[in-house]
């Protein structure tokens, strides 16, 4: 149960996941926001009209996967760090997962880092292919990680305390 452990369940994740077809078409946001709290910056961040305005600020965000182009603006704006971008069109076998990151040191492009799932479990060692700064004010980094296709919906964090290189 999410509210006992902090770990979203498979059913929780399923509710906010696009179809396999949509995933294959290219980058798309996965909004892992499962609790009604007064918060709406994602709706203002989205310039694609994909995250619909909320009637009540406590509503859960509603994302139209077909309008979402995976630009990632919502990812860097979400105060809950709950939005990820998955691009399953990266190659036949690999996907790119973009995650928000607010720890030090910030990994560099081509670093190999230990990827973690929603429970903090190790999923393997993956390459960072891009690092985007959120800028002076926002400060949240976006890390782009290349992962095998089957981990695209699982990898959500990396091990802290710096970069652990593959042996």
């Amino acid at each position, binding site marked *: *149960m*999410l*509210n*006992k*452990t*902090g*770990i*979203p369940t498979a059913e929780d994740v399923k509710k906010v996941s696009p179809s396999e077809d949509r995933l294959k078409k290219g980058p798309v946001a996965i909004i*892992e*926001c*499962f*609790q*009604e*709290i*007064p*918060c*709406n*910056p994602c709706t*203002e961040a989205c310039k694609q009209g994909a995250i619909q305005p909320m009637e*009540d*600020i*406590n509503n859960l965000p509603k994302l139209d996967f077909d309008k979402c182009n995976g630009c990632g603006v919502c990812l860097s*704006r*979400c*105060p*809950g*760090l*709950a939005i990820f971008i998955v691009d399953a069109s990266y190659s036949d076998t690999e996907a790119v997962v973009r995650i928000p990151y*607010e*720890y*030090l040191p910030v990994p560099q492009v081509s670093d190999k880092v230990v990827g*973690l*799932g*929603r*429970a*903090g479990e190790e999923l393997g060692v993956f390459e960072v292919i891009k690092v985007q700064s959120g800028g002076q*004010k*926002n*400060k*949240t980094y976006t890390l782009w990680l290349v992962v095998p296709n089957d981990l695209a919906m699982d990898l*959500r*964090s990396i*091990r*802290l*305390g710096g970069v652990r290189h593959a042996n």
Partner: protein
Amino acid sequence: MPKVKETEILIVGGGPAGLSAASAAANLGASVLVLERDGKPGGQLIKQTHKFFGSKKQYAGDRGYQIGDLLIEQCRNNPNLEVWTDTTVLGIYEDGVVTAEGQGKHLKITPKKIIVATGASEKMIAFPNNDLPGIYGAGAVQTLMNVHGIVPGKRVLMIGAGNIGLIVSYQLMQAGVEIAAIIEAAPTIGGYLVHASKIRRAGVPILTSHTITEAYGDEGVEGAIICKLDESWQPVLGSEQDLKVDVVCLAVGLSPLTELCFQADCQMKYVPELSGHVPVRSEYLETTRPGLYVAGDVSGVEEASSAMVEGRLAGISAACSLGYGEDIAPKLQAEALAELSELRAGPAGQKTLRGIINLMDKGGVVC
């Protein structure tokens, strides 16, 4: 300085509620004096490095300290407004005189209206050795780290999975400190689940239905024993775990800082949903002592977003009662009330709403 300082509106406390009240009142034309006990205004905002929730109107998406800077700037640019730091209010007297200690002097102020925005203080819990060096309140950990740049230790046990426990754990991790676990006596996580999830996926266990049974160590904390609680909150025998930690951080809730309200003879009521004794007040935040308003955590512990809106509402109401902005005040008040209802409309705000209904209900007044 004259023997007695005159001002139209005196605001006690320069946190999110106090500063918002100050600029709202000064913008309508009232002369405002803010007294802040600390050396710098901003209250708890200056230690908040995470992005705030809410909507644009409450600066959502900005980090707490950035919001603090913004509020301080708004006050600094207002010619009707003065902020005195390192000044502690001591008493509010029957004849309307307010006394304070500051600048090495005993100060007297005669305001026409008063807004008490003193915030809240941290609760403590009882367990053996809770006086060992290395046992901290979460606020102290934040002050050490985010004001003075000092980490409290190497490995921390966090007690409490409300928003403060979750956020301070995250800040500790950002500072390179390991969190052994976050434990919470209640069966569910009290804080926002997005905060919990981001900590959990970084590898930190969040153990609900768990409590601390003791801390141990010679010179300071060397470890802590935690155990599971059953459905009736009783320790489960044999469930003890020994965690090697050098810091135990307590984030077990806040109590409204209401001493001045008691002393000023405001009617008080114990409202558990608002976290303790709070002054009975009108919709516009005026207490039963005419001309004395409250805003922020002192009127019930909540989020900084609502504290800022309450501050604005109290500031407008106090200024309006002095004849300032009478034409636009009703509209501004209605806007603030609408924002508060919006913030409290969801499941997370239900407790506060119940508390306010309970508070407004006649009866149960303690003094």
